[in-house]
């Protein structure tokens, strides 16, 4: 997991596996980073994610709830095909916004017409 900051947005590049064991670390580290940076919006880049199960999806959805409650926007990028099909099965494809690249996601977040919390 690595963190990058771009204006009002925290970008998290995922790596490894997201399951019952790693979900709690993921939550803690992302929440801490959001607190430290004060970022209102979150981009989760899933490119390096090797494995995810329903517990992992739950942890991702949890971040989405929290960001949305705070008036921000959360976007998933570089979603691997297998994760995409799990999101579809879970009925989350309509809830979680996905963009191809971090750049695309940043544009969506920073566009005044598409919402997202102000900088």
């Amino acid at each position, binding site marked *: 997991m690595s963190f990058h900051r771009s204006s009002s947005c925290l970008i998290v590049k995922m790596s490894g596996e997201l*399951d*019952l*064991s790693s979900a709690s670390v993921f939550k803690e580290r992302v929440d801490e980073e959001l607190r430290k940076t004060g970022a209102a919006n979150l981009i989760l880049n899933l490119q390096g994610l090797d*494995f995810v*199960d329903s517990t992992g*999806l739950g942890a991702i*959805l949890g971040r989405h709830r929290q960001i949305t409650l705070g008036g921000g926007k959360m976007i998933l990028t570089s979603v691997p095909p297998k994760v995409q099909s799990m999101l579809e099965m879970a009925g989350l494809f309509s809830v979680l916004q996905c963009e191809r690249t971090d750049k695309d996601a940043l544009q969506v977040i920073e566009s005044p017409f598409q919402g997202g919390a102000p900088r």
Partner: protein
Amino acid sequence: MKNEMSLTLLCVPSNVAVARIAVATFAASLGFSVSEIEEIKVAVSEAVSNSVLHAYPHGEGEVTVRATTEDSEPHGGELVVEVRDTGAGIPDIAKAKEPGYSTIPEHMGLGLSFMESFMDSLLVESAPGKGTTVRMVKRPCRQ
């Protein structure tokens, strides 16, 4: 090829990965595709996570993962995975299987649905206070 493995683990979160990676390696000799192996990993991860999360709310317990492959027809190349705990059990299995139903707030209630989607068959046996056994079967598609 006939083969058997039996793996008993303490119900702690880090052992979920041990179970799914052991079964995935065990299954590899059957000629599953890469994405079928991924599906097996998710199904095993869900079943073992359930034992870790739900079976022993008041203390320590174990989960046993048995996997077998047969070489006799008509079961040639079939993977059978059984995940068993001796924990709390499920009072209403039909309800537990409903997508989105979970007795733990932060959870998705999708474990049993994913097992059903990713494997060819799923059988849940459970008795409150006695424990739960999940039996899943998968055959490689190219056969």
